[in-house]
């Protein structure tokens, strides 16, 4: 009897990819400078007070 393959759920897709990354992905890959410090948000946050205010606001939403 032939059974049509069931469509994978998004959760199954995520689990499969995560397991594949553990097997095939490289370890300790460093980010490029451009992405590490490149975001506008990371450039404008300069003090602990700014960062704390921002995170408090973000988590309150």
């Amino acid at each position, binding site marked *: 009897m032939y059974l049509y393959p069931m*469509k*994978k759920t*998004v959760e199954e*897709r*995520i689990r499969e*990819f*995560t397991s*594949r*990354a*553990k097997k*095939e*992905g*490289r*370890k300790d*890959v*460093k*980010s*490029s400078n*451009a*992405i*590490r*410090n*490149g*975001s*506008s*948000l*990371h450039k*404008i*946050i*300069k*003090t*602990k007070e*700014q*960062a704390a*205010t*921002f*995170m408090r*606001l*973000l988590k309150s*939403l």
Partner: protein
Amino acid sequence: MAIAVKLDFDDVYDIKPLSEDLRISTFETELSDGSTLPLLVEISNDPHELLPEVFNLAFGPPTNKGEIDDKAEITHKNYSRTFSSILLSGLIYLNSNTAHYLGIDGSNNARAYLYYRFLQQNYDYLDRYFNVYGLKYYVRISRFGKHQYDNPFDFNDIYPFPEKIKKAMQLNPDFMYNYFIFNRKHLN
């Protein structure tokens, strides 16, 4: 050209993991001329010392040095599949890093507006998986000059103000959010 995108995590390209920690992945996107182009999706692994939970996400074709060219202008054959693949990569990462937030700049205002339209076109779908926020940056008005606005801005004193993006919000396209942030929606 108006681009309509229908996000669907069941209709994605074959995404390949490049790092075991789910930060870097790649897939081949189809271009309008029938050719293919590799795209990298990368999440920073080096948290900002003051913002240890917010990580930058970038995507684009690799340069000769293997870095992401996020300013490349590409005509995709299937924008829906391309952006579904990029966002699924982010969702996979957030699923294992549930306390993290991912941020996307958009390399210019037009591109940020494009992303905002994609968010609105797919609001209900994205709302199943993510909380999505837009950031506006506010600058301190200094007190130099005789009048309030003579020499008004101290660009060393900027505050980012986040707001949750709501369905069908109308924004002036000329004043788009400065930054977009996603985190994983927790279903309790």
